[in-house]
């Protein structure tokens, strides 16, 4: 297995044909293809980070500081955005779908007024589907709230 390079020599002297030995190169390619095919990852999956209220974290000896509390309550009728003492219902849209766009806009407004706030709680009812929760958390991440806690609506204290 070789490839010859014609030099166009017609002078009757020593031919200048050079044979490239391609056997090692083909061997290398074959080994690489076999290795990469075996180790290939065909399904690309990722993760979405969430935290929980840990046991013992809430019950410290020192009284907690008064902090701005931000909760997105997810229930069957839509969202309820709780920012400290203010509650803002975001009902489902006309087609009966959750209004993620409006939630995102409201969260962005809150982020603009509280730039140092990074944590948010997503409180869910029992009947809410996982897909809705993931999209809600995704919306919160898009609004630059990276520290997300997923909790039960009963534990949100609203």
């Amino acid at each position: 297995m070789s490839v010859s390079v014609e030099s166009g020599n017609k002078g009757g002297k020593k031919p200048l044909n050079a044979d490239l030995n391609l056997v090692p190169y083909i061997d290398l390619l074959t080994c690489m293809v076999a290795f990469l095919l075996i180790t290939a990852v065909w399904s690309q999956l990722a993760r979405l980070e969430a935290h929980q209220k840990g046991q013992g974290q809430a019950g410290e000896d020192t009284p907690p500081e008064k902090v701005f509390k931000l909760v997105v309550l997810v229930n069957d009728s839509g969202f309820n955005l709780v920012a400290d003492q203010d509650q803002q219902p975001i009902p489902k849209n006309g087609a009966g779908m959750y209004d993620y766009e409006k939630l995102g806009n409201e969260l962005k407004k809150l982020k603009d007024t509280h730039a140092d706030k990074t944590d948010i709680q997503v409180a869910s009812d029992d009947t809410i589907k996982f897909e809705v929760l993931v999209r809600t958390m995704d919306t919160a991440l898009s609004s630059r709230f990276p520290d997300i806690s997923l909790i039960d609506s009963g534990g949100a204290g609203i």
Partner: protein
Amino acid sequence: MPIHAPHAHLYDSVKLEVAKAKLGHEGRKSLYAPLNLVAYIDMMTMLVIFLLMSFSATGEILFVQKNIVLPDAQNWTELERAPVIGVSKDVVTLDGSQVATADELMKDSSTGDFKIAELHDKLVTLKNNYKLLHPSEEFNGIAIIQSDKNVEFKMLKKIMYSCAVAGYQNVNFAVTPKAKGGGSGPAM
């Protein structure tokens, strides 16, 4: 006696007429057929480049299960190696072995305790094993929940509670990565 350069020759006892004619330079048409390898090498090179681009050094942490359809998310991060809790509409598994059924989890507990005993015990064992194997590292408390998108939060909260009690405070949800700025996805 003239001196000739050494070359291949056949003994008289060998009755291969064609070979004898070739070696004696009596043949007419050359039997040497060069093989064109350019296309083959091109194809192999393209294949290697494609496979190198899709290569992942971390390997496959999560396996797609046929009864679990993952939700999409735009703000995702790379997977880490951690215990994987699979949640389908019928069964809950930890690293492939069943720890609870959906019917058990959908029932309201008479005692009000959300803890799934088998899942909790296995997670505690995994945590202790990790601490034994990595004495110098701090336990990060990460567990990955690979849940079907139609599973209700009632099931998930019991799983999350069991994880928290076992020391896994950081629960990550497996998602299908979606490019930022892509479609808004199916409505829910």
